């Protein structure tokens, strides 16, 4: 085991899979010689060569389209979108092509492409470097959608994603690339770097975490908290702040969703709060609320609440007012716990 940041863990996942399978390559803007603007592909160019750490033109649609063609022809391309906010020019290739190719060809063709995309706010990135578009992709049939919350999971999940024969959209919450984050002015004495955090202990070799399996991070009796990515850590701080004995579930994979783990928890607590950073309306939280309502209605003692980003573009000056704070989450937990 070695202490790794999430950037290093992702790099290690790419290195492990490229080392084992010559058909795996990474491709994207600045990923080759430079090693990526967030450094996730550092050293791969030197180790595996320019054709396996492939710099590309600035053409997201072209990158994904080329990856599909490569995937159809036996390779396993791992695409890096420089920011999740830049994924939209590729959306036709992802939604109409990558996601549906297997189905529309009656199982004849498929492309095992992973699209990695740094997402989320908290780095003063304004509206074009802060978005969380996961809900767009979970709405599309045929894509698996993943968002890890720590280095250990990031590596294990990315290896699974690369080895999976289905396309995977892999969101990397960039606010926690280098250390956990508990919300603005929150955290107290908690770990600030991954080296200080247990989930920063990462095996150097190959291992995998199955897609579709959630992780119960904290056992609790009063409220079930469903979250993923950066917000898992903010939720942890909020649970402590609220004094509510909440059970915290890190979904890790949004689709396929680990509904069994969720149902088991909500049937026990009778209450549920859903947290994500993305905008509220038609966000993935709406899907979670609907699932919990359908599966657990007779066990519920409180309305299921969502704590999310507001329905506005991500504002540069009001980052922390937009970001779901530990205070907002804590209020929701107390409101839920007060219902009986």
């Amino acid at each position: 085991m070695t202490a790794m940041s999430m950037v290093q863990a992702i790099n290690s996942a790419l290195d492990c899979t490229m080392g084992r399978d010559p058909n795996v390559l990474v491709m994207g803007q600045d990923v080759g010689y430079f090693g990526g603007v967030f450094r996730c592909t550092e050293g791969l160019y030197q180790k595996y060569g320019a054709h396996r750490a492939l710099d590309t033109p600035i053409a997201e649609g072209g990158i994904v389209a080329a990856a599909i063609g490569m995937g159809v022809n036996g390779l396993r391309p791992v695409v890096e979108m420089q920011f999740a906010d830049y994924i939209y020019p590729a959306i036709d290739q992802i939604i109409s092509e990558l996601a549906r190719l297997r189905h529309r060809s009656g199982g004849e063709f498929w492309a095992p492409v992973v699209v990695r995309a740094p997402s989320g706010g908290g780095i003063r990135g304004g509206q074009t470097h802060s978005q969380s578009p996961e809900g767009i992709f979970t709405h599309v049939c045929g894509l698996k959608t993943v968002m890890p919350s720590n280095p250990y999971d990031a590596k294990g999940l990315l290896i699974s994603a690369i080895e999976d024969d289905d396309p995977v959209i892999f969101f990397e919450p960039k606010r926690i690339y280098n250390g956990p984050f508990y919300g603005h002015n929150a955290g107290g004495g908690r770990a600030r770097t991954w080296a200080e955090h247990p989930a920063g202990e990462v095996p150097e070799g190959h291992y995998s975490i199955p897609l579709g399996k959630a992780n119960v991070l904290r056992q609790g009796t009063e409220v079930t908290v469903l979250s993923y990515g950066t917000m898992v850590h903010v939720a942890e701080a909020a649970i402590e702040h609220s004094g509510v004995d909440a059970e915290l579930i890190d979904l890790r994979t949004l689709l396929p969703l680990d509904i069994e783990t969720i149902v088991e928890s909500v049937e026990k607590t009778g209450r549920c709060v859903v947290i994500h950073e993305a905008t509220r309306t038609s966000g993935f939280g709406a899907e979670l609320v609907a699932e919990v309502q359908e599966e657990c209605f007779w066990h519920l003692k409180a309305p299921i609440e969502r704590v999310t980003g507001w329905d506005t573009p991500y504002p540069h000056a009001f980052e922390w007012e937009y970001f779901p704070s530990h205070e907002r989450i804590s209020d929701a937990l107390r409101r839920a716990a007060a219902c009986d």
Partner: protein
Amino acid sequence: MTNSVDGAAVSAYASKLHIPRASSRPGETSDFQSLAIPPAGSLRQPPLDVSPQDTADLAHGMVRVLDDEGRAVGAWAPELTPRQLRAGLRHMLHVRAYDERMFRMQRQGKLSFYMKCTGEEAVAVAQAMALEDGDMLFPTYRQQGLLFVRGRPLVDMMCHCISNAGDNLKGRQMPVFYSWKQGNFFSISGNLATQYSQAVGWAMASAYKGEDHIAAAWVGDGSTAEADVHNAMLFAATYRAPVLLNVVNNQWAISTPQSFASTGTTFAARGLGFNIPSLRVDGNDFLAVYAVTRWAAARARAGHGPTFVELFTYRVEGHSTSDNPAGYRSSDEAAAWPLGDPIERLKQHLVNLGEWSDEQHTALAAELQASVAGDWKRAIALGTLEDGPHWPVESMFEDVFKEIPEHLRRQQEKVRAKS
């Protein structure tokens, strides 16, 4: 292993992925010596109704006016008065002083981000001077010079960059993503090249309405890879829209060299395939940039449709405050760039004309630095990024729609109650 093509045996599977090279990587010597730079004044100026295919020599060559001695030579030498030339020089020096100040303020934590245009000042400044005020500008984040020529107060630009109460964008955008409707300067997007095809639409509307305003759009060498650039060129050519489509080839897209988008020829050459008259111009030559822009604008206004222009220049600094170019290119590149510095070249020309001196130049640079420092003080008096005052926080819910719908009104109330 052999294969057969038309009965002839050939050695099979010789295909390999071609990985384009950079002009240099760290530790290497830059290979600009291999660039074919035609002498100043060597290219003709065609008539405004030139057929696109008759511009092939201009698309593969390079329009240059200022020679190595700073003389304006050849058919493209524009008629500019010394007063206009001095105004151009002043704008470029002003942009550079502004960039240096803002970069420094970012390093001190006063801005979250910044992008300089060092070495490329002639592009935006000469082009804005060559266009009319009613022409609509669709820039990237590296044409701040347009704002200087159009007369935007620097205090306003700074207020935007620090998202304070004086920011006309109400704290919503990252620094340098300016918008200024009054100056016909379109809102800059963080997503690359989207404005390129929008500019064509704006120009189509101008033609549709029978107005003589044209649109001008810019995109970087790297961003020409985006599908929006193809869309722009196709629509512009199809409808003969009155638009000037510029590619600022500054050689680098963050760490990616222009060779990953140029396909081994000039960017200007791409216009020929769309049947658009196309030229490449020395982007560090103020006079050449001005002349080509005047020519293209006159073409558009005369009903001859779009012109595609590659401005050949060099990004002297990093892409932004977020990258260090020493990690991906040789540190000697800027010094080795064969087309010099646009400010120095225009200065040399003015000195040759007897219209400028070293003393005046030094005094002007100092005056502009002092004026930028004064503007900064006035800007931060209206609020800072970290401590404000900013716009009221509940203002983030405005302008999502023209009227705030009920669901947003409820969210706004929650924020107001907390603030």
